[in-house]
């Protein structure tokens, strides 16, 4: 291991813990006993007149640990606003259905005959100021982004030393740095541009325009927007990537596709991460029957190929992006849960967990403060490598026409251009290049993160 990693010992990942801020505040007097038992020895020598472990009034600590840092207050406030908004939206959408069912059930009447009183709104999405209506994917997407900001960006900003260390390790891998820049660009464009530019429109007169650097015989498009010379229609900057057989602008479609791919990859990863950590940590911490039940369930879930389950769901309920994300997010976490469990099983035997338990820490506390931060490295790596699979699956399903028919995903455009390949090669190929590069970039990134974060790989790197 190199220098900075030694300072933090096995708790290297601790700084990314959501509670890092809090432990700095309340832990001033006592935290060394519970927080870093492995390097407790070093701290106790400079303690001088500090209270020893036995002198500490742990009940008092328990009471004061309720106080929160400004960051946590901000987080709670945002989550509060989010929950209220979500509740309002759910109310607007489902109040009528719930009301008629409940009243119908209670009065024994047919639920279609139940009159709704004035206070029950017409079913439909709630209208919010500024943002308008919000659908299921938007709710998940905004939550994912919020969590990303508060649990990744802010902790990195607050711990510049660890950030610099991670960056130094990460920087060694040039391919990964390029991949990260590429993904950042894709992410930002995908996030901003669809808010400003309207979605690609069908304009049959503008079909088959070639990309700006290309040229096709002028018989291919109905009318050529760009300059025509020697019987060749040249592309224009009006449609830099050309247009499809429906006259949709490919650049705009590709940009819309960026957001969809990012949504599928990141939301799916977030859901998987959440469930996998909860299941894996519980299984490892509680052991016994909890472990047995959870892990045997994981066995079954892993056996059932998610792709085929989604096919069944599409067949029964129709395809939608929301359903796809939910199916892949809720049923694809088995592999990560196994990794979390095996990692947490090792951590559970560490002295700092025993110390926390002897000090009377609750299981929730031990899991959150001691197990979760210490398994986070391998979890993050595994999760990053889940993203390319999700993006690929979404593109494949959209290509088959089993995705969301209402949105322009990369897979859709590739499928749209399939029959035109001999005269309009750009329709299928350009979105395919973006798809390929995005998946490649996530794979590079995941690999680099594993090298930078995963302590088990350390030995191999020194060769």
């Amino acid at each position: 291991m190199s220098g900075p990693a030694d300072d933090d010992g096995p708790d290297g990942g601790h700084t990314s813990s959501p509670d890092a801020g809090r432990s700095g505040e309340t832990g001033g007097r006592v935290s060394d006993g519970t927080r870093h038992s492995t390097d407790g020895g070093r701290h106790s020598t400079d303690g001088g007149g500090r209270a020893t472990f036995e002198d500490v009034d742990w009940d008092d600590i328990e009471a004061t640990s309720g106080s929160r840092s400004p960051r946590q207050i901000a987080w709670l406030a945002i989550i509060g606003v989010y929950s209220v908004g979500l509740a309002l939206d759910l109310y607007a959408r489902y109040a009528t259905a719930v009301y008629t069912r409940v009243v119908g059930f209670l009065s024994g009447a047919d639920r279609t005959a139940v009159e709704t009183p004035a206070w029950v709104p017409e079913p439909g999405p709630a209208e919010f100021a500024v943002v308008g209506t919000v659908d299921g994917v938007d709710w998940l997407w905004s939550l994912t982004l919020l969590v990303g900001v508060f649990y990744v960006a802010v902790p990195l900003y607050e711990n510049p030393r660890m950030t610099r260390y991670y960056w130094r390790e990460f920087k060694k891998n040039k391919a990964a740095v390029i991949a990260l820049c590429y993904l950042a660009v894709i992410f930002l464009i995908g996030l901003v541009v669809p808010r400003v530019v309207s979605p690609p429109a069908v304009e049959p007169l503008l079909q088959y325009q070639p990309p700006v650097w290309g040229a096709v015989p002028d018989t291919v498009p109905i009318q050529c927007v760009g300059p025509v010379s020697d019987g060749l229609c040249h592309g224009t900057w009006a449609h830099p990537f050309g247009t499809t057989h429906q006259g949709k602008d490919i650049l705009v479609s590709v940009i819309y596709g960026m957001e969809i791919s990012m949504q599928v990859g990141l939301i799916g990863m977030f859901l998987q991460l959440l469930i996998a950590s909860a299941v894996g940590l519980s299984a490892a911490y509680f052991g016994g029957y909890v472990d047995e039940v959870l892990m045997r369930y994981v066995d079954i879930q892993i056996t059932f190929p998610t792709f085929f389950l989604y096919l069944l769901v599409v067949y029964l309920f129709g395809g939608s992006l929301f359903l796809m994300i939910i199916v892949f997010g809720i049923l694809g976490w088995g592999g990560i849960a196994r990794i979390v469990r095996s990692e947490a099983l090792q951590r559970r035997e560490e002295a700092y967990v025993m110390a926390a338990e002897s000090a009377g820490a609750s299981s929730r506390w031990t899991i959150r403060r001691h197990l979760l931060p210490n398994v986070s490295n391998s979890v993050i790596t595994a999760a990053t490598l889940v993203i390319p699979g999700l993006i690929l699956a979404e593109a494949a399903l959209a290509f088959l026409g089993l995705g969301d028919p209402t949105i322009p995903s990369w897979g859709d455009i590739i499928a749209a251009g399939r029959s035109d390949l001999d005269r309009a090669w750009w329709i299928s190929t350009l979105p395919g290049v973006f798809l390929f590069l995005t998946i490649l970039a996530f794979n590079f990134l995941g690999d680099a993160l594993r090298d930078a974060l995963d302590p088990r790989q350390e030995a191999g790197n020194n060769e």
Partner: protein
Amino acid sequence: MKWYIVRRVAWAGVATLVILTVTFVLMYLTPDTRLLELQFEAAQAGQDPEQVAQAAAEARGLDDPFLVQYADFMRNMLTLNWGWSTTRSQPVMDALTDAIPYSMMYGVPAVVLSTVAGLAIGLYSAVNQYTKTDYVATFFAFFGISIPNFWFAIILLVIFGAWLGWVDILFDPTLAKVDGEFTLGAILSWPNIKQLILPIFVLTTTSVASMMRYARAEALEYVEAEFVKTAKAKGVDERTIVLKHIFRPAAVPLATILVGDLLGIIFVGSYLIEVVFGIPGLGLLSFNAITNQDTALVFGTVFVPTFIAIIGNLAQDIAYVILDPRIDYGDR
């Protein structure tokens, strides 16, 4: 060990039942599109839609209580009586047995090729870590796992089919048959093999890449092991070290990956490849069943990969305990 195997087999049985049950509940809870269609047709023809629907439901046993329907469903599933395909007008089982050989024609060579090549390249990369060859192999692995295979297949079809004209764009299913029956001679005939080359290549690219990565990572664990150093110090030649001292211990975890991961890649990959190339195998059958709303066939075609996955996982776990004496199978 016997006790473990018995329990593992029993568990596979439980998993099968659970999956069948979940599917049944899903089917039970969703409105039957065919019934709605019937109602609509009846209304158009001036009949009473309710009456027609009821008659149809009665004929198909849909008005039976939940448990009776469930028992019927399970009995049919377990006796391989998987229903009638309405679009193909034949039993689902017949449709499946007709389609599966087409999938195997390119699936089996792809699995064999990717396993052999993946292991070989992975081992070579691990032994020669951080050399030029290793970087080339790693780059190829990244390419293979990142390229969307349906897109890759389209590009290859355009290049080799449309531009160069080396292969036919349309797949001809009759080439593998003589008088409507599959024969080994016809399957191995050159025209048939020629049209299978691209599908095999596309499927192999994806699976060989992940196989290679795993093989390299597993082998690396042993490259620096004490026993390998000892063997080297005693002057054992390179080949024996790689095959006997590195490959043998690495083979055990690799065996599990082979089944678990490769199976998934192959099944999903073949689905798309068959649609792109127009191979009338299991994937295309399933895809057509979904677009044509052929319920029995949809479930049949989805169950096949699922059951193969269950059996594959079972075989893998049993192989694991037999191959690796260190595994403590007592407390699982």
